[in-house]
């Protein structure tokens, strides 16, 4: 099975994240880049499926040059190879352009199964997997907390408000995972060493036959009009419980008309 995992480099949530004042896009240079947490679960699921059914795992990342750090991490976990879509023309792409660029690349490299995280910690749109399914005309098997492949049949459990749905389709398909699905492995020393030698193919927009008119900030389907740091929350009142903490909390709630 030919599995492609979409992995995104995101700014570390533990550091301060900013928008650039010039073009109002995410300042990717200001913060350390890390693997989007949920994408580690996507990589893990891909590796488990490969271990069970054979095949190959390819990491697909769209991002600036420094995203190679992220790619190496996924390779160190055990992925076989990577495709890095990297081009200045892609800067400022919104969800529509990103899904377009990833879909074109996927068509070019081929796949039986595409696995994504269900959400990134920076954009947090949670729409990429659905958009890829739409663009590729492939079944949408998103928000999975369980994936089973049997020949060309695939079944997932899709997390819902009321519990879950069991959903069936056949390959090729697009899957997104939630973090309850598995426990991502840590790269071993051997894995880290091996990753240095694994092939990473870097593609520019032209190489993947992506139309430059459909990507980048100037072609985005939406724009940031303005932004500002959120006003700090007014400092609250903190009391130490001296046997009446619950009563004091109730008084606070009453003063706000909640009780």
């Amino acid at each position: 099975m030919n599995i492609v995992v979409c992995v995104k480099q995101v700014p570390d949530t533990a550091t301060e994240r900013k928008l650039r004042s010039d073009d109002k896009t995410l300042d990717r240079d200001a913060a350390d880049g890390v693997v989007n947490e949920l994408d580690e679960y996507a990589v893990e699921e891909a590796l488990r499926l490969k271990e069970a059914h054979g095949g190959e795992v390819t990491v697909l990342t769209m991002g600036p040059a420094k995203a190679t750090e992220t790619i190496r991490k996924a390779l160190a976990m055990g992925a076989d190879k990577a495709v890095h879509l990297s081009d200045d023309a892609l800067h400022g792409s919104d969800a529509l352009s990103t899904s377009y660029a990833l879909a074109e690349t996927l068509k070019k490299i081929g796949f039986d199964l595409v696995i994504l995280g269900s959400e990134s910690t920076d954009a947090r749109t949670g729409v990429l997997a659905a958009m890829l399914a739409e663009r590729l005309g492939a079944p949408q098997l998103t928000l999975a907390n369980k994936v089973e492949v049997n020949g060309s049949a695939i079944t997932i459990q899709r997390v819902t408000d009321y519990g879950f749905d069991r959903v069936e389709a056949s390959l090729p398909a697009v899957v997104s995972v939630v973090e309850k699905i598995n426990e991502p492995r840590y790269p071993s020393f051997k894995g880290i060493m091996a990753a240095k030698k694994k092939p990473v193919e870097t593609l520019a927009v032209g190489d993947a036959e992506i139309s430059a008119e459909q990507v980048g900030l100037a072609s985005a389907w939406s724009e940031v009009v303005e932004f500002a740091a959120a006003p700090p929350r007014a400092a609250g009142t903190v009391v130490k419980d001296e046997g009446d903490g619950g009563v004091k909390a109730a008084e606070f709630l009453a003063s706000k008309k909640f009780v």
Partner: protein
Amino acid sequence: MSEILVLVEHADGDVKKVTLELLTLARSLGEPSAVWAGPGYTDAAKAKLAEYGAAKIYVASSEEIVDHVVAPKAELLAKLVSDASPAAVLVAATAEGKEIAGRLAIKTDSGVITDAVGLSEGFVADQSIFGGGVNVRSRVTKGTPIVAVRPNSTAPVAEAGAGAEEKVEIALSDSARAAKVVERVKQERGARPELTEAAIVVSGGRGVGSGENFAIIEKLADSLGAAVGASRAATDAGWYPHQFQVGQTGKTVSPQLYIAAGISGAIQHRAGMQTSKTIVVINKDSEAPIFEIADFGVVGDLFQVVPQLTEEIEKRK
């Protein structure tokens, strides 16, 4: 006035509160048309939608729409966008709502904005990003604005609309039928309000210590008519079901009041509750980061403070 499509969220034939919020919001920008997708449409639902201002109600009640994942609803909306040329499409910013919005954006070659917490003139959306650190105003620049609006962003206000019903037949494409739902598994939730919709949420974390102890959190929630939430530490431990997890990889909630007991306030947890209007914290560690965003905090043992708070609320009723 320009038509605005509002996709109705419903369960067991009941219109969900978020839809009434979206109808209210749509009324401030144009004339809302409700879109009912799937079976379960009733006279009561119709009355509710009209009460909150739906001028039209498009009803596509085919069972098939809910038998496949997301794609049929996007196809239905795309058909209506093409037939009615609305000024905008609003959906609820639930996990599924956002997926519908994403597919619709591609079908209609339109921009999409997710997780709006407000919407004004010209469909300029307010968003709160980076775990609440930055406020952004953004807008769609191509096609029909598609906006996924977070529950609890607007107070629902009734104002009658005509509620003119229009049946819609839709022939689904093969690709919309590609992912088939073969079983729906309901996990009990009790009579409490739904987490993302609730005006008040009471959440417990690792400090609660066990599944049995969550009864303390539930009692406090019930005294306030609130929903119960949990941190990931609590859902991972199996103390509370996963669908109640609040945070980056759980539900995003934005209630009037959020009470966190025994939760430290990790960035991933805060990402799911930071836009709550009022935050009350109970934690025995005065250094816990959750106190930084608390409007009112009690440094103390939750096993003392929470039952006392519950009792005091019951007394004041």
